[in-house]
């Protein structure tokens, strides 16, 4: 039954149609198929609910709608009998959307903002931080022993601070202000109120549950100052020096009198003489990030230098691994050679080792004083300190790590080409080179072209190779942000994650650019590959 179903096509001599194609995924599969389907759908539903719960807590209705839509779609596709092709396509399409298309869209949306350190959150968060950070201890501000209490229910009742000053006098303070407290029991050891008539003292856990309230709570003592808690057991007198006014959309510093006005284009508060408050917010900046590396002289020259080297690097590495890999494959393809297997294992070894460790090893081999190269060659070359030797080093290390793969693919492809063809060419009078050039190579390229394109695309973004060996260096002394061996991807990474001010917006714009460049190159090379067109036909 199942074998007939999974074939999906009428067997020889069988009636034209006995059951719909789709195997166990179709409505009338075997019992086990049904059970497996129910289990998987159940699991998927659980996953959906698990995803929807935090969205519900966060009040994200659009998110819940998307989750529900996906669930309904999955149920429809796998329970209906009319959607056979979709049963195969849906998982791939969902993963493609989740892990390829969404990240690209998110990167694109980030690339038109000023998302960076100092511009991470929204405006409300920036204002809250500015006000909270400006609370300072009042001059000769008093300190108090603190007991947090309430007049009502521990969870919702109004907060009251039961305070004792340095003389041991007890006070009660609420949002109305401070007043003396007469009938309070003060613990002589800690100097804090432990009990007072009419107040319920809160436990640490109860106080903690009201943390957000406590952060904003201050007992007013006049002149803008307030008594705030600075731990569960102490309070101090302080005042906020910076106050936001929604009317003028500005922050006033009451101690200096400077007014900082919100600039919604740059996402920060600026004073009249151009000084800004550190806490800013994320705003849309349009295509400024793109303009920066395309038109700003400093950034544009870095960008285009890197781009040229990046293409050169990818071409050089791809070309060299192809030539070296193919040459070795041809050598080991000679029928008379003995010990072929041993040679092949040796050649593939670099491919079998962890490339991360290998890159670090290569880096150390290029050390001026202690590295293998200078000691073997008896030279004193500062390999990674000079632009061209560093580029050479990076390419060399990559060719060493990359050629075994090419060798494997070429060996496989060579074995698929009948030797008779070459022999026939030789009998017809072609030299060894001619036979290779006009018979073997064209047939090889059918298999090799897609691999070469993949290798090119991989090396175009070969982050590890550069980051682990040179970190993009050496750098010109006047521009530490763009080094001689930097690829676009390492440059982007430095912008986003590795420098003091993370510039996600700018890095996202660079990523979009890389995406465009690689896509265009791949499309062109795929559409122009003659060998591939032959395969397509």
């Amino acid at each position, binding site marked *: 039954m199942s074998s007939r179903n999974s074939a999906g096509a009428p067997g020889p001599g069988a009636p034209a149609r006995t059951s719909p194609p789709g195997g166990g995924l179709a409505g009338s599969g075997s019992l086990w198929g049904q059970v497996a389907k129910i289990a998987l759908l*159940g699991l998927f539903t659980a996953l959906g609910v698990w995803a929807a719960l935090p969205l519900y807590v966060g009040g994200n209705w659009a998110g819940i709608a998307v989750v529900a839509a996906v669930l309904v779609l999955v149920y429809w596709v796998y329970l209906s009998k009319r959607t056979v092709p979709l049963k195969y396509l849906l998982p791939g399409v969902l993963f493609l959307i989740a892990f390829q298309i969404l990240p690209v869209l998110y990167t694109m949306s980030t690339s038109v903002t000023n998302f960076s350190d100092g511009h991470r959150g929204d405006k409300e968060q920036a204002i809250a931080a500015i006000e909270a950070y400006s609370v300072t201890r009042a001059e000769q501000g008093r300190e108090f022993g603190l007991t947090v209490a309430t007049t009502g229910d521990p969870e919702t009742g109004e907060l009251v601070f039961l305070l004792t000053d340095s003389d041991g006098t007890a006070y009660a303070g609420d949002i109305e202000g401070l007043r003396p407290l007469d009938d309070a029991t003060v613990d002589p050891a800690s100097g804090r109120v432990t009990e007072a008539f009419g107040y319920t003292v809160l436990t640490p856990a109860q106080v903690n549950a009201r943390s957000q309230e406590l952060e904003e709570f201050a007992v007013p003592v006049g002149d803008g100052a307030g008594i705030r808690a600075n731990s569960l057991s102490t309070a101090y007198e302080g005042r906020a020096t910076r106050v936001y006014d929604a009317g003028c959309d500005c922050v006033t510093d009451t101690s200096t009198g400077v007014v900082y006005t919100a600039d919604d284009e740059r996402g920060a508060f600026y004073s009249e003489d151009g000084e800004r408050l550190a806490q800013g917010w994320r705003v849309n900046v349009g295509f400024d990030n793109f303009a920066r590396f395309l038109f700003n002289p400093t950034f544009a020259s870095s960008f285009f230098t890197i781009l040229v080297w990046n293409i050169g690097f990818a071409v050089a590495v791809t070309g060299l691994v192809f030539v070296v890999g193919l040459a070795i494959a041809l050598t080991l393809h000679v029928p008379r050679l003995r010990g072929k297997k041993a040679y092949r294992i040796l050649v593939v070894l670099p491919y079998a080792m962890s490339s991360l460790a290998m890159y670090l090893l290569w880096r150390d081999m290029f050390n001026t004083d202690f590295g293998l190269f200078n000691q073997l060659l008896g030279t004193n070359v500062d390999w990674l300190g000079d632009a061209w030797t560093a580029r050479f080093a990076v390419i060399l290390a990559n060719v060493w790590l990359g050629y075994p793969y090419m060798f494997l693919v070429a060996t496989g492809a060579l074995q698929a080409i009948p030797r008779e063809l070459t022999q026939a060419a030789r009998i017809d009078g072609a030299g060894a080179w001619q036979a290779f050039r006009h018979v073997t190579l064209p047939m090889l390229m059918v298999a090799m072209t897609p691999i070469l394109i993949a290798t090119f695309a991989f090396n175009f973004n070969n982050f590890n190779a550069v980051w682990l060996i040179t970190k993009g260096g050496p750098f010109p002394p006047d521009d530490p942000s763009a080094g001689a061996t930097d690829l676009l991807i390492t440059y982007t990474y430095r912008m986003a*994650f590795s420098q003091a001010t993370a510039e996600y917006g700018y890095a996202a714009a660079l990523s979009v650019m890389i995406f465009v460049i690689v896509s265009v190159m791949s499309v062109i090379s795929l559409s122009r590959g003659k060998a591939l067109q032959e395969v397509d036909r």
Partner: protein
Amino acid sequence: MRLRSAPAIAALAATALMATACGGGDEDAQENTDTTLVIWSDPERAAAIEAAAQNFADTNGVRVDVQQLAFGDIQGDLLNAHQAGNAPDIFIGAHDWTGNLVRNGAVQPVELPEHRAETLDETSVQALTYDSQLFGVPYSQENIFLMRNTALAPDAPETFEELVEVGTSLKDGGETSEVLSMAVGQEGDPYRMNALFTSAGGYLFGQDAEGNWDPNDLGLNSDESIAAMEKIAEYGESGQGVLRRSIDTQNDASLFFDGEAPFFIAGPWNIGDADAADLEYAISPIPGFEGEGPARPYIGYQAFFITEGSANSALAQEFLANHVTDPGFILSLYESDPRTPVQLEALEEVSASDANIAAIAEAGAEGMPMPSIPEMGETWEPLGKAEAAIIGGADVRETMESTHETIAEKIGG
């Protein structure tokens, strides 16, 4: 009929299955209503913090959950988690993160009660202060120092010249291959170099009267700084060859431990390996240049911070104000992770029993806290690369002036 209802049955069964899957989770959810204070720490200190915080947990009837991250990841992950709303309540960090954390509104100010603040080393509190506001509670400090192989160099050198003289005679005698093992690397190391740079009179940022760093007073192109780098260049690759780019943080320690270098600019992180290595060593301050100022290594402080928006901020504030400043807490942390405490009582007790701690603290006596302003971050890469270029033989004045411009442009914008 059977066939048509099959999908409906399957759908029902799948939904029922889902319901049972969800049912299992409910018991866990119940437990989570207990108050839990989440702390981020590096793996090295996690167990110590968890044990030391137990007292706090018991006193206040809450749970403390210490989660582990690589130290270098904490700042970046914290900023991202804060934005996503799932940050911890408390995290450990380095004091020089303060500026960036404040700029992103990711930390809460801390107001230490006076009787607690005065038990901490004053410079350490100053180092965690940004814009006259305290943002974290320091608990340990670290600084680099000079480690010497006492079999090769029995006496601590008084001046850098003396160090070079002793080292050179050892090298010429064939006993060692290096004069000094000081990491420079291809990208330079301004953290280590600051000791020599300040001794020779150079400065990076100026300070106002209250000790706040002034990002507008960048000193790299000043005559003092250029003269200082010229002095350092004398020991570079085109000079005496004492400072070289081929020595980096990957091989500096092994050069010393293998006996190839009599002197080593080391940090507390090298102590464990030094004890395990087969040599006698001693710790002393990094010597300054003869007739110049003392070498001032950077001092880095480790501190506890509270995340802005923490749901448990009351407990977190209590933890920082009254427990991180408590000598008992610090000592129990020290026992599993020996770092120099900044809590004065704890420091006294630890120094009495651990000679290394006392020697490192002495080596840091002339030190300066690493500036914690966000602008500081912009100086590392350019300055390091400039120092590496100068040690490699580049023109000092030209390099320093262009580096000054690069940095000024970055922090101005």
